C-alpha cells in the first residue's frame, strides 16, 4: 500500500491501454460487420426488413452502452448464460457500434446520387452488382471520414467496460489509484493516454474530410 508511482505502475497502465485498443478493435470489427448488414437492411426493398432494422437502431441508440453492458454481464448469467468480462464488453460494444455505424453507412449509401442508382439499373445490373460495383465504391469514399471519426467514440466508450470488471485503461488507473491514492496525477495520466489515442484519429478524420471536400469543389469548378 502507498508508495509512489513507479515503472511497474506505468507498465500496468500500458497493458490497460493495450486492452483499450484491443477492445476498440473488437468493437470496430464486430460492429463494422454487423453495422454493414444493418445498413443494407435499412435500404432493403423489403418494408419488413427496413422496419425491423430501423427498430433495432432506435432501440440500441436509445439505450445507454452502460445498460447494455450490465444486461450482457449481469443479465445473461441470470438466464443461465455465463459470460466473461471480455465477452460481455466485446458483445456490448459490437451491438452499440453496429447501430451507429449502420446508421452512418445508411446515410452514405443514400448520399450516392440517385441518378447513379438509376444508371446502374438502366444497364440491367442486378441488385448485388449495382451495390458492389457502383454504389459501394462511391459510398466507401463518403463513409471514410465519419467512420474514422466514430472510432474516437468507440475508444472513449471502451472505458465503460471497467464496470463489468474488464481491466482496460480506465480500470487499470482505478486499480493503481486504489493503492497509491494519487487520483489527480493518475487520472491525468489516463486522460493524456486517451487523448493520445483519440487525437490522431480526429485529426486524420478531419484531413480526410477536407480532402473529400476539396475534391468535390474541384469537380464542381471543372
Amino acid at each position, binding site marked *: 500500500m502507498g508508495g509512489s508511482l513507479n515503472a511497474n505502475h506505468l507498465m500496468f497502465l500500458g497493458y490497460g491501454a493495450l486492452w483499450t485498443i484491443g477492445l476498440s478493435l473488437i468493437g470496430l470489427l464486430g460492429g463494422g460487420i454487423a453495422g454493414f448488414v444493418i445498413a443494407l437492411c435499412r435500404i432493403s426493398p423489403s418494408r419488413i426488413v427496413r422496419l425491423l432494422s430501423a427498430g433495432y437502431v432506435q432501440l440500441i441508440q436509445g439505450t445507454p452502452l452502460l445498460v447494455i453492458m450490465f444486461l450482457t454481464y449481469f443479465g445473461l448469467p441470470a438466464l443461465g448464460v455465463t459470460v466473461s468480462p471480455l465477452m460481455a464488453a466485446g458483445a456490448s460494444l459490437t451491438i452499440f457500434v453496429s447501430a451507429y455505424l449502420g446508421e452512418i453507412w445508411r446515410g452514405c449509401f443514400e448520399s450516392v446520387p440517385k441518378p447513379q442508382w*438509376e444508371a446502374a*439499373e*438502366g*444497364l440491367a445490373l*442486378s441488385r448485388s452488382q449495382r451495390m458492389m*460495383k457502383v454504389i459501394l465504391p*462511391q459510398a466507401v469514399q463518403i463513409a471514410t471520414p465519419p467512420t474514422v471519426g466514430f472510432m474516437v467514440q468507440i475508444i472513449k466508450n471502451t472505458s465503460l467496460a471497467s464496470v463489468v470488471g474488464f481491466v482496460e485503461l480506465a480500470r487499470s488507473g482505478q486499480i493503481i489509484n486504489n493503492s497509491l491514492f494519487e487520483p489527480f496525477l493518475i487520472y491525468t495520466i489516463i486522460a493524456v493516454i486517451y487523448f493520445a489515442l483519440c487525437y490522431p484519429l480526429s485529426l486524420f478524420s478531419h484531413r480526410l474530410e477536407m480532402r473529400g471536400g476539396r475534391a468535390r469543389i474541384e*469537380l464542381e469548378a471543372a
Partner: protein
Amino acid sequence: MHKITRTDTASSVVGLSNVHKSFGALKVLNGVSFEVNRGEVLVLIGRSGSGKSTALRCIDRFETIDSGEIVVCGHRVSDPKLDLRALRQDVGIVFQSYNLFPHLTIEENITLAPCSVKGISKVQAKEQARRVLAQVGLEDKLHQYPEQLSGGQQQRAAIARSLAMQPKVMLFDEVTSALDPELTGEVLKVIEALAADGMTMVMVTHEMGFARGIANRVVFMHHGKVHETGPAAILTSPATPELAQFVGTGL
C-alpha cells in the same frame, strides 16, 4: 386483356396504349398512346410538366403506371411479373446528367454491364468498348476518368456505354439540356449518326431544329395527353393552337 397481339407485331418496338399515371394527386399521364416501329425516331416534345419525361421513363419501368398497357420489344412492361433485367437489356437509356460512374474509367464504365450482365469475356468487352467509343468519336478517352472529360464528351461516353449493351431501342431523356450549344452540337451529331444506322429511338428534347431534322414522328404532349402527333412537318405547320404556341416560343 391480351392486347399484346395488337402491339407485338413484327415492326412495333415500343407501344403505349391508354397509359395513366399519377404522382399522388397530380395526374401526369392521362391516357397516353403512341407506337414506335423498328428503325423509327420518335421525338416527344412539350412544356415542362407535360408528362413527356415520365412517359419516357415508364417505357424503361423507372416509373410504374396506374393503368393502361406498355409493350416494349415483346416485354409487357405493365406486368408485375416482368423480367426487369431482360427488359433493360433490350432498352438503352441516356439521361440528362450523363451519370457515368465516377470511380471507373471510361473503358470500365462501358465494359461493366456487358461483362457482368451478358457474361462476355474481358477481352471481347474491351474490344467492343473501343468500337462504341470510336462510334461516338472518343476512342482516345478509353483510360480517362469521367471528371477529366467535358460535359459533351461525358454524354457521348454515356451513349457509348448504352450502345455496348446492343439495345434494340434507345431512350434519350433531354440529353443535351445540361450542355452549351457547342457541346450540344457534338452530342446531336452522334445521335444523328445512330438514327442513320437505323437505331430505333425515343427522345425527349427541347431542340426543335434538331427534332425537325431527325424525327420520323413527333408527339406533342400537353396536360398529360398526346395533344398532336404526326410527321416532323407538324412542327412547321401545327394543327392545334397549343403546338403553334409551343413551337412559336420554342424557336
